[in-house]
């Protein structure tokens, strides 16, 4: 990861151009795309995966249950606006905070687990959240929460899908900036250090347990933000809104995009989302059995992981980064001066 970062620092121009291009594409896409729901889901996945990629790539902790925090954010909006009459904007701002607070609370015991145990612990957490949602009527019960009001201030409310899409894009931008600043800070160095050697990090003065909980809560805050946005975009929240498969998808997106990079989450979310959409279209062709869709989805996940591990073990962003670096190097050699 470090060689990548130092290489990035030494040749900023092509990267800056790529980022500008991506921003322009992201802003234009909603205006030309026929299906905004797909695009919105992709942007929200990108927000979640940016946090997850930071958690996995920099602090070395995995979570198979980010959906639990997406749910926490969505419930904050759904229950907050329908039951407690919170103004929609306040509910949206509260969503990441509630999710982060929830993560901090469960993180204290959960983060004593390591590796696979932690991954399964977070998955168990998601299942518990689902169970709680269908059991307790406050959280919607089996029917879920509906009647979530549109986002707005006073009488001015958001109409249509487009404003939500741009709001989500703005949030994604904010989340990327926050991740960048977090990683390149004293706190971020502490996180990376404890992934390298917990003992050495501690003796350098890094409060290991607190740092782990903090980064866990931050990534949960991103998930909660995505959840809050989704509750306004699709104003219905039920236990089925957060299937475990979606949380696995986040992990696959993070790995495919490349852990330990700021942009890996976005790239992974785009690649996997587009691929799934294509598969969806193919598998819903007439003549194919209804089981075709899930089978193809699982097969794709398997194939993606194997391909990624074989050809791009560090993920797309670092590999492309290194590839572009080599190309530029060759161009310089062939065309001196």
């Amino acid at each position, binding site marked *: 990861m470090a060689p990548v970062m130092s290489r990035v620092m030494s040749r900023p121009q092509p990267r800056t151009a790529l980022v500008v291009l991506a921003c322009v594409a992201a802003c234009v896409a909603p205006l030309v795309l026929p299906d905004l729901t797909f695009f919105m889901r992709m942007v929200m996945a990108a927000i979640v995966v940016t946090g997850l990629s930071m958690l996995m790539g920099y602090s070395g902790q995995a979570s198979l249950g980010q959906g639990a925090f997406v749910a926490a954010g969505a419930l904050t909006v759904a229950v907050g606006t329908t039951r407690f009459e919170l103004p929609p904007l306040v509910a949206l701002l509260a969503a990441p905070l509630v999710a982060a607070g929830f993560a901090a609370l469960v993180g204290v015991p959960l983060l004593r687990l390591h590796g696979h145990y932690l991954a399964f612990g977070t998955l168990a957490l998601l299942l518990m959240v689902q169970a709680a949602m269908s059991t307790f009527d406050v959280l919607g019960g089996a029917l879920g929460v509906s009647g979530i009001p549109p986002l707005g201030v006073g009488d001015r409310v958001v109409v249509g899908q487009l404003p939500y899409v741009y709001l989500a894009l703005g949030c994604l931008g904010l989340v990327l900036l926050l991740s960048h600043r977090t990683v390149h800070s004293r706190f971020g160095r502490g996180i990376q250090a404890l992934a390298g050697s917990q003992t050495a990090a501690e003796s350098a*003065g890094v409060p290991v347990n607190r740092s782990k909980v903090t980064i866990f809560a931050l990534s949960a805050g991103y998930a909660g933000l995505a959840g809050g946005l989704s509750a306004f975009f699709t104003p219905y929240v039920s236990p089925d809104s957060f299937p475990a498969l979606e949380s696995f998808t986040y992990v696959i997106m993070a790995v495919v995009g490349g852990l330990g990079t700021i942009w890996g989450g976005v790239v992974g979310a785009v690649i996997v989302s587009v691929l799934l959409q294509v598969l969806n279209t193919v598998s819903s062709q007439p003549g194919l059995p209804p089981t075709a869709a899930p089978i193809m989805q699982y097969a794709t996940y398997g194939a993606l992981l194997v391909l990624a591990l074989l050809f791009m073990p560090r993920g797309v962003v670092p590999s492309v980064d290194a590839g572009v670096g080599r190309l530029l190097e060759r161009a310089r050699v062939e065309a001196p001066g």
Partner: protein
Amino acid sequence: MLKVERMSKHFGGVYANRDVSLEVAEGELRGVIGPNGAGKSTLFNLIAGHLRPDAGSISLAGAHIDRLPPHVRARRGVAIVFQGARLFAGMSLLQNVMVGAHARSRAGLVSAAFRPPAQRREEREIRTQAEQCLDRVGLLELADRPAEGLPLGQQRRLQVARALAGRPRLLLLDEPASGLRAAERTQLADLIRELNGAGTTILLVEHDVGMVTSLAHRITVLDLGTVIADGTPAEVTSDPAVVKAYLGTGADHAAHH
């Protein structure tokens, strides 16, 4: 400055430290020697807080630190260079050393997000000082290289630089010269003398007894987890018990290799 009283630590049936008492004065350079398995690293890990003693107590500048976790002891001025390389993989040499400044800086996540002037100033100061620390151990040219895959000698020096970045009051050096070439050893010895001259209290564990006797004010000798001698280098090296412990294992070594 540092006072260890009747401290014991055992692993299963093995006493790694048994009734170890030790008093180190402010500004002292204390050598700690003893054969392999004598309990030197265990003693250091107990002082730094990575191990909990079964009995006994440790105080630093008059305050008990027994119950403090390692990162709080670091804030109180304790730094350790581990015997094994414990570097932060995935980070550059400079970043590794910048982590060492954690003990004396404070910016958290909120200031990372908003980057107020105080945070920027602290970051600049940490970077500059980390570069100075790398320079002191002769690794400045490699500042942007990744830490993994460094030759052993450079790993040791990087660890020393990381410890220095915390500006410790008490520096624990566990065999810092192992894996270093002769020229590097001399440089390290000079650096240790210089740091101690500037007021840092140092505990030095080193296999190279010649290096320890030339640097240390006093030497503590451990064998099988207990202190068998404590005194000036001249006193210790002529102590019959020390000679016996060393010759005993020396003969063992010869037989093994």
